[in-house]
């Protein structure tokens, strides 16, 4: 399938993403304080979190298991791994180093397939601990620049993260957004993270560069503070244009870390990029290697649920809709595809079920309160021609409101009775008589002209006519 490519003034865009996700564990990566968002500041702290002398980290087994789930869902190889200290001074990490994985990450060499058919390589997905949260006081709007002092909450310090590093395979802002959406759907499906960008449990950094097609990779800038899927696309596009302007002006790109400002829609210099050397990585002496056994890896693999891509394919095949259609995408995103199959299993029509799920079930979550059998009953009435699509919509709304019920009884109570065909034929006659121009154009092959005729009939029947049947009669008369 084709992959969207963004180009401007003869440059192409090259993007790699680094996505940090907080794991859905009960405790931190190396200590037993709660991993919980939104608690009172500094209530989830312990000697390891505070970096007190003599405190020793002990690895959380479930965090490793969730890390493996992510790796396996992204087609990675899970391998024996070690932890390393990444040294830097920042008050949100009292040890003055972050425990991360450097030379031997848990997961390497995977890929993620996107709904448009493109594939993005995954270089690695490694484990590390999160830092605390700084609030900057004084200066403008909580920004670090110009702040008088900062306040540190260490509840988040030590929370387990997996950092997923893509290869620089992304070629457009849309593809980057699609990557983030698909990754998020996978993380939710496998229960690895709640992946909320707005709460920071999923954070996306974008490495952006531009180049002449076929040329070597250009110098990249890393964009941080991208807090929504929409911003991912905006920030990348802004940054690419900035770099192209500089190159065209004969300037060179400096490798930098840049900060995305949602308000002004620009990226700003945060700092010149550190070299990996500056972090003085070395093996964490307080932790031993992790060597996941083949049995453990197999058990985790076997426990993975069906992933979004497979679920979209399953639903698309059952309904005949395109796998990248909006209906299929949104229903699988909401986790309502199992419900669609339950409607099918209850003797309903899955195609009609999907139509209702897409619209009326948008806010109802993965397990709608309406019994699948009741929606199945409604779809049967539609398929049998006893309800029009418009009438069915009304009945669905009623079913949802009542939390269930007999579709036929609701339809009868509303006075919905299917018109018989002869009645419709008469209406078609009247419409042709009233709209002779439209009729001639329609007969001459102008299908658009049908709209005026159908509209006339719908109006005359006050919406009770079955649009599909009307179309069939009109086509037969032509």
């Amino acid at each position, binding site marked *: 399938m084709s992959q969207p490519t963004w180009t401007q003034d003869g440059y192409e865009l090259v993007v790699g993403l680094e996505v940090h996700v907080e794991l859905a564990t009960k405790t931190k990566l190396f200590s037993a304080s709660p991993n919980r968002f939104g608690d009172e*500041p*500094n209530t989830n702290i312990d000697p390891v979190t505070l970096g007190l002398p003599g405190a020793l980290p002990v*690895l959380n087994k479930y965090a490793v298991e969730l890390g493996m789930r992510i790796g396996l869902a992204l087609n990675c190889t899970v391998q024996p791994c070690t932890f390393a200290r990444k040294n830097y*001074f920042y008050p949100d990490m009292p040890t003055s180093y972050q425990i991360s994985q450097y030379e*031997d990450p848990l997961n390497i060499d995977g890929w993620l397939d996107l709904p448009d058919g493109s594939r993005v390589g995954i270089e690695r997905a490694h484990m590390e601990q999160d830092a605390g949260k700084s609030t900057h006081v004084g200066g403008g709007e909580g920004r670090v620049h110009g702040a008088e002092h900062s306040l540190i909450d260490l509840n988040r310090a030590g929370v387990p993260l997996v950092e997923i590093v893509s290869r620089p395979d992304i070629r457009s802002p849309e593809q980057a957004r699609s990557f983030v959406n698909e990754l998020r759907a996978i993380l939710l499906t496998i229960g690895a993270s709640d992946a909320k960008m707005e709460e920071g449990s999923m954070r996306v950094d974008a490495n952006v560069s531009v180049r002449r097609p076929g040329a070597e990779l250009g110098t990249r800038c890393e964009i941080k503070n991208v807090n929504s899927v929409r911003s991912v696309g905006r920030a990348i596009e802004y940054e690419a244009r900035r770099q192209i302007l500089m190159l065209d002006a004969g300037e060179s790109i400096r490798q930098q870390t840049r900060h995305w400002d949602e308000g002004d829609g620009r990226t700003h210099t945060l700092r010149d990029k550190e070299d990996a050397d500056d972090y003085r990585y070395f093996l964490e002496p307080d932790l*031993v290697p*992790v060597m996941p056994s083949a049995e453990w890896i197999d058990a985790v693999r076997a426990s993975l649920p069906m992933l979004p891509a497979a679920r979209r394919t399953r639903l698309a095949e059952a309904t005949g809709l395109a796998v990248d259609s909006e209906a299929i995408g949104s229903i699988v995103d909401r986790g309502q595809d199992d419900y669609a199959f339950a409607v099918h299993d209850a003797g309903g029509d899955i195609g009609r079920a999907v139509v209702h799920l897409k619209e009326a079930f948008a806010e109802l979550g993965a397990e709608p309160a309406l019994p699948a059998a009741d929606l199945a009953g409604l779809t049967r009435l539609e398929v049998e021609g006893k309800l029009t699509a418009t009438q069915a919509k009304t009945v669905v709304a009623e079913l949802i409101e009542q939390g269930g019920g007999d579709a036929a009884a609701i339809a009868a109570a509303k006075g919905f009775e299917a018109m018989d065909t002869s009645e419709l034929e008469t209406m078609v006659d009247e419409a042709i008589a009233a709209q002779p121009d439209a009729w001639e154009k329609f007969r001459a092959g102008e299908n658009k002209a049908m709209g005026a005729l159908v509209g006339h009939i719908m109006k005359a029947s006050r919406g009770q006519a079955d649009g599909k049947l009307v179309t069939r009669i009109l086509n037969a008369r032509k």
Partner: protein
Amino acid sequence: MSDRLTNDAVVKVARLARLDLTPDEIERATEKLGDMLDHFADIDALDLSAIEPMNQPLPIVNVMRDDVVEPCLDRDEVLAAAPQAEDGRFRVPPIIGFAG
């Protein structure tokens, strides 16, 4: 004195470690660290191709704990030990000026 290490490299490492060294101390550190690098160069010169890399001196792997919450430290007690605290949080100097 070793030629493996320059004063500039030591100044850089000291800055990364937030160490405020006098010129004398830089000279001494350059010499001592250079001696260490010489020692590692001696090891580098050995043929170790038949020896497995050792990540860790302990012959154990997979030391892990279950994901079970245990009681935390008392916030007030911890903050009382900090140089400055405000609103239940640690108060620290401005970060940009603080970082090097």
